[in-house]
Every structure is written in structure tokens, then in C-alpha cells.
């Protein structure tokens, strides 16, 4: 066996192997493309097998067998063009001319007999070479417009087609010039082998090679994906994902996001093939994949969803690949890749589209988290800004209030001493009282703001709560006689004296304010195990049941409070609750409308730890 025979043997085996592979594929999925591929390699395999088979059967080479082989070979350019037409637009005129050329070749072979005269041979070779090279260029163009693994495989197929054409051209050289016969026969064998290898790489590349071809696009896509969640809008992210997916396939891509309110998949990028909203449970391919949550390949969208066929055709949508975009249990949407013509190799692409969809899920999910975090942050910032503003404004008010209150008090002192000023005493007294109220209001605003920010300072020291309660009752400026204090024992605990005073004072003032002028406000303080219990009871207007859960909220005033009759902005009880909680205690109220309210405060006197 010579080296040339070995080369020929290998390429023949490869041709047959490819045929077996594509024939199995065509049997599994009877698409036009698969059948055309099988026909092309079938013709090639039969042409190369005929000689050895006849030899094996002991049948000598005769005119018929030679003619059959010649016809099979001459069928190759036409079948190749059919294959190309499955993937790309081939003008009808070219298709018709090629078919015409093939029919003419058959007529020439049958009528002329073998060996052919030189003119006929020249015609056949010319036809073959022109059509194969045209086909090869067609595949090269196709490769240029595709990308990723598809591009590489299309390039390999193009190379195979080109090499076959050149191989035939070189082989033809031997018939034209006997001097070149030895060389051209060898060269054409080598070219045929190269063509066979190219086709193997194109139609059935080894897994490793396939992966390495996928890698650059995938790497680029993933690299870009990591920065995507930071894009300003979700729409911008979708555009980038669609572009990236499209480039990876050499096709167009669209992402539909699931809108639970509309129960539909929403496609922002209207590509004409789909309505903007695809209902969740419908015959649309996207909604089918969304329901099954399994990536699917539809060789022909129009056939898979005939009701919508016109729209698919109008938008030049042929084959469609769809994968669900899902993060954990959250179904986000679907990724669709679609083309006017069938992508050359859909089996690889199904895994790829799912991979890209998974990546899209990660990107969109991070985006959701970023959006959520930003929303929370913005809310916090707005709240903080408001607190800062109130607190700054209140602080700035304190300086003029200091002068106002101080000056009014000085006048009050003088009017008390100088008889000539006595007539102004009531007026000056009013200024002093109002300045005090203003001052207390500012203090309340600042305290409420501190409580809101958790910045209320509590300075604990041993105090007798009973004494504090009595002290508050004593220093109350008005209606002192209405307050009944009941404290029997020593109630020493570690608390902030000023804050406990403020707490009791607020509750007592409330009790006085919201009850009749002749009714009592009863203040009690006692010890219950490790708790100091304070209660303030009035017999006033009470609090409606609907307001009970809200009375301790900021700026909340009960529905039965006439704002014109009872001054206040609704901070007192909020501050009381803040003080109780800052001490690890709690506050609550029992009330009946028309009969009065009882406020309870319990404080753990450990100075540490919280109440359950």
C-alpha cells in the first residue's frame, strides 16, 4: 500500500463516517437541512465507495458503474448549493442554473459515454469548480455573519467545500495533461483528505474543540456580564444581554421579563415577531418554554405556532431557540435567540442558550438586589435628611429662644420689684409662658429626633423613682391640686433622672390636659419583683380603641382630640415610649372612651437588660 493509497483510504473512511453521522441526525430530526446534509454526504460516500465495493464483489469496472460514479460526483455541487440555501439566501436564478447544470451533466455523461471527449470533460469540470467555489464563498460569507462556535464550524464547512472544488480541479488536470497525472492524482487525494477533515471539524467537531471554539465569545459575554448589574437601568441591561446573546449565536436575541401583575412575558425590544406582552398561558413559544422551564429549539417558528405564522414570516423569524431565565425558584423570564435561517448547528446552541439564560438570570437577579438596596438606601437617606433638618432647625431655634425667654423672665422679675411696672405683669407672664412652651416644643422635637435615630442619651444614676414622681407633681405649674400621688416605699433603681422626670411629667400633663378641670389625676409608683411600675390614671375623654395601638406613634393624635381645644403636636407619648424603651422597659395604655385612660410604665431596675 502506498502513502497515496493510505491517504485515499483515510479520506474514504472519513467520508463514509460523516455520512453515517449525518444520516443518523437526519433520521432523528427530519428537517430539510438534515436531509440535505445527508444527501450531500450520501452522494459523496457512494461515489467513493463504489470502486472498492465493486472490487470486493469481483465486478470489473464497467461503463455503467463509471457513469453512476460520475453522476454521483456531479450531483455534489448541486447538493452543496441546496445545503447553502438552507442556511443563507441563495438567489433562485443561481439555484435553477445549478440544477440545470446538473441535469446537463447527467445528459452529457449518459449520452457521451466514458471516456468523455475533452469538450464535455471541460464542461463538467468547469461546472463543478464554479459551483463548488461559489458554494464555498457562500459558506465563507455565512461564517462572516455568524460568531462563536457556529462561525468556526461554518468556516470549516466552507474550507471543505473549497478544498473539494480545488481537488476536482487538480484531478481534472490529469485528464488534460498526462505529464501531470501522477502529481495531480496525489495532490487531489491529499486535498480530498483535507476536505474530509474540514467537514469532520465542521459537522462533528470533537467536544474539546467545540468547547475551545465556544470559549472566546462566552468569555467575552461573561466578562461583560459582571459589569452589567451596575448599568443605570434594567432596560439598558436587557439591551446589553440581548446584544451579547445575539453575538454569541450570530443571530438576534430578545429577552422577555415576566410581569406577575399582567401575568405576561414583557418584551421591551419589539422585534415584530411577538406582541410586547405575551400572555403567560398561551400557544406562544416563549410562554410554552416559560411554563415547561426547559430550553427548546423550534426549527421553524411558523410551523410550531401556525396561528402566528404570518407575523413570524413578516419579521423573518425562522428557527427559534428559547431558554427560561430562572434564579432559584424565581422565574424571571425567557431568553429567545432567533434567525431568518436555521443556524447551522442547533444542538450546541441549545446548551449555549441555556448557559446564557442562566447568566442573564444572575445579572438580572443582582440587578434586582441592587435596585432594592438602592431603594432602601434612598429611603433611609430621605429620612435621615428630614431628621437632620428638624434637628438643625431646632438647634438654631434654641439661641433666640434663650434670649426671648431670658429677657421675658428678667422683665417679669423687674415688674415684680418695681410697682410702676406691676400693670404689665400679666402681659409679661404670658410672654414667659409662651416662650417656655416654645422651648418645650423645640426640646420635644429634638428628643423625638434623637429617639428616631436611636441617639437618646441615658445617663443612669441611683434615684428614688417615688421621689421623682413626687417632685414632678410638685413642680407642675398648674392644676397641682388635681394630682394625687401614691408612693409607699423606697423605689431606688438606676435610671436617668432627667428622662424619668420627663416621662412622668409628660404623662401627668397629658392626664391633666385631657380631663375635666375638677377631676383627679392619680399617679402611683410601686415595685413588682425586679420591676418598678408607674401608672398615671385620669378620668378624661379616653382613647378610642382604633387609636390605642397608635397613640405612641410620632405625630399621632387620637380621633376624639379636638386640635383647637387641646394644643400639642403628638410627640409626648412617642418620647415617653422612647425613654421607657431606652431604659429597657415598656409602656402601654388601658382606656375607655368617656371614662379615662391609665398609662402604665414598667422599668427593670437592674440598669441593664431588656424586658421580654
Amino acid at each position, binding site marked *: 500500500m502506498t502513502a497515496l493509497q493510505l491517504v485515499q483510504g483515510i479520506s474514504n473512511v472519513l467520508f463514509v463516517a460523516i455520512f453515517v453521522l449525518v444520516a443518523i441526525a437526519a433520521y432523528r430530526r427530519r428537517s430539510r437541512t438534515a436531509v440535505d446534509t445527508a444527501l450531500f454526504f450520501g452522494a459523496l460516500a457512494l461515489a467513493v465507495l463504489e470502486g472498492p465495493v465493486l472490487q470486493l464483489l469481483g465486478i470489473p469496472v464497467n461503463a455503467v458503474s463509471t457513469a453512476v460514479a460520475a453522476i454521483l460526483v456531479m450531483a455534489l455541487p448541486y447538493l452543496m448549493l441546496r445545503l447553502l440555501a438552507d442556511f443563507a439566501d441563495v438567489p433562485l436564478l443561481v439555484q435553477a442554473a445549478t440544477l440545470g447544470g446538473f441535469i446537463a451533466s447527467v445528459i452529457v455523461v449518459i449520452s457521451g459515454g466514458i471516456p468523455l471527449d475533452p469538450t464535455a470533460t471541460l464542461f463538467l469540470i468547469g461546472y463543478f469548480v464554479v459551483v463548488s467555489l461559489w458554494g464555498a464563498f457562500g459558506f465563507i460569507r455565512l461564517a462572516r455573519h455568524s460568531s462563536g462556535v457556529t462561525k468556526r464550524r461554518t468556516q470549516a464547512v466552507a474550507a471543505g467545500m473549497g478544498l473539494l472544488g480545488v481537488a476536482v480541479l487538480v484531478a481534472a488536470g490529469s485528464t488534460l495533461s498526462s505529464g501531470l497525472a501522477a502529481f495531480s492524482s496525489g495532490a487531489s487525494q491529499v486535498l480530498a483528505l483535507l476536505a474530509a477533515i474540514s467537514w469532520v471539524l465542521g459537522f462533528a467537531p470533537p467536544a474539546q474543540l467545540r468547547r475551545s471554539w465556544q470559549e472566546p465569545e462566552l468569555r467575552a459575554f461573561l466578562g461583560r456580564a459582571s459589569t452589567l448589574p451596575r448599568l443605570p437601568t434594567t432596560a439598558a441591561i436587557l439591551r446589553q444581554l440581548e446584544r451579547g446573546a445575539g453575538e454569541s449565536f450570530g443571530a438576534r436575541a430578545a429577552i422577555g421579563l415576566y410581569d406577575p401583575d399582567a401575568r405576561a412575558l414583557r418584551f421591551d425590544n419589539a422585534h415584530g415577531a411577538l406582541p410586547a406582552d405575551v400572555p403567560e398561558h398561551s400557544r406562544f413559544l416563549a410562554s410554552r418554554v416559560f411554563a415547561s422551564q426547559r430550553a427548546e429549539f423550534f426549527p421553524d417558528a411558523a410551523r410550531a405556532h401556525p396561528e402566528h405564522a404570518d407575523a413570524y414570516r413578516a419579521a423573518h423569524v425562522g428557527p427559534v431557540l428559547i431558554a427560561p431565565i430562572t434564579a432559584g425558584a424565581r422565574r424571571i423570564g425567557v431568553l429567545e435567540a432567533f434567525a431568518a435561517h436555521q443556524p447551522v448547528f442547533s444542538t450546541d446552541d441549545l446548551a449555549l442558550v441555556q448557559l446564557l439564560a442562566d447568566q442573564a438570570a444572575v445579572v438580572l437577579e443582582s440587578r434586582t438586589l441592587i435596585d432594592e438596596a438602592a431603594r432602601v438606601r434612598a429611603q433611609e437617606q430621605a429620612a435621615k435628611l428630614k431628621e437632620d433638618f428638624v434637628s438643625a432647625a431646632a438647634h438654631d431655634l*434654641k439661641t433666640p429662644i434663650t434670649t426671648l425667654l*431670658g429677657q421675658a423672665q428678667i422683665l417679669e422679675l*423687674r415688674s415684680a420689684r418695681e410697682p410702676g411696672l406691676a400693670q404689665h405683669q400679666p402681659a409679661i407672664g404670658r410672654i414667659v409662658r409662651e*416662650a417656655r412652651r416654645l422651648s418645650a416644643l423645640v426640646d420635644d422635637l429634638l428628643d423625638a429626633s434623637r429617639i428616631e435615630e436611636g441617639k437618646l*442619651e441615658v445617663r443612669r444614676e441611683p434615684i428614688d423613682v417615688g421621689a421623682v414622681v413626687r417632685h414632678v407633681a410638685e413642680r407642675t405649674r398648674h392644676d397641682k391640686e388635681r394630682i394625687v400621688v401614691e408612693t409607699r416605699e423606697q423605689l431606688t433603681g438606676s435610671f436617668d433622672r432627667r428622662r424619668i422626670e420627663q416621662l412622668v411629667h409628660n404623662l401627668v400633663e397629658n392626664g391633666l390636659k385631657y380631663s375635666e378641670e375638677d377631676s383627679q389625676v392619680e399617679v402611683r409608683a410601686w415595685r413588682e419583683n425586679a420591676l418598678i411600675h408607674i401608672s398615671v390614671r385620669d378620668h378624661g375623654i379616653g382613647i378610642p380603641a382604633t387609636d390605642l395601638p397608635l397613640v405612641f406613634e410620632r405625630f399621632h393624635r387620637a380621633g376624639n382630640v379636638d386640635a383647637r381645644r387641646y394644643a400639642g403636636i403628638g410627640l409626648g407619648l412617642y418620647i415617653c415610649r422612647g425613654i421607657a424603651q431606652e431604659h429597657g422597659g415598656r409602656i402601654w395604655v388601658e382606656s375607655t372612651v368617656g371614662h379615662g385612660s391609665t398609662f402604665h410604665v414598667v422599668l427593670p431596675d437592674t440598669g441593664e437588660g431588656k424586658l421580654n
Partner: protein
Amino acid sequence: MLAPDHARASDHAALSRSPVDDSVADRRPILVIDDDAEILAMLRDFLESEGLVVRTAANGEEALDLLWEVEPALILLDMRMPVLDGWGFAERFRERRLRCPIVVMTAAESARRWAEEIGATAYIAKPFDVNELLQTIERHRQKDSKPN
């Protein structure tokens, strides 16, 4: 121990008499340091009418200059001021080994903590009750005045 100087006695009881006895009125001044001109004017007017000698400064720097020539019986010190604030003033004050009771007078809630930070004798929160202010001054001012 630093105690809040909040007089809780009834206002009317305090109003009826002047807490500063004119007969023992000290010639050593009360130094009031505050960046608010209205507060300075009010306190000067009021404390002088109560028989006290008053010197004022708009910030720590001015006060330190003044301290070269006067030896106050008490300093009323605002904390947040331009040029030199209460902390800066207290630091330089100690560096010069000056001795005099300081009463911190501030609108901040942290009045007590700030007073502790600079080693003040007492504090009073703004807006203050003028009777409380008088009582605080009376309680803490140095009375062992040097004869003129």
C-alpha cells in the same frame, strides 16, 4: 461630682427676692463668653442689675486676651463658638494655670458630658431659667475677693 444646677423651687418664690446680696457684691467680674451678641447684651444687663460686675467676650480667643487683665469670680462659657470654642478655651485656660470656676452654658443635650470633658464646675442648659442661672452663679462664684 457634677450636678445639674436646675433649681426646682417655685419660680414665684425666687422672683420675690434677688439672690445676690448687694452688700456683699463682689468686685471680681463674671466673665460671660458667648458668640451670640443678644445673649451677651441680655446677660450683661441682667447680671449688672443684680449687682454683679460683668465682662463679656465673643469667643475663647477674646476671653483669653481679657484674662490677662481681669481675674473673674466665675466664667459662663458657651461651647460652640467661632475662632476658639469652649474646648480650645478650656485647654489654653489650663495651660496658663488660671484658676476660676467655669459654668458651661450650652444649648446642646450633651451639656453635662461636655462640662465633664473640660473639667467645668457646673453646667446650665440653654434656654435657661434666669433664676436658675442666678442661683448657679451664686453657688459657684469665688467670694474670697482680693481687697482692692
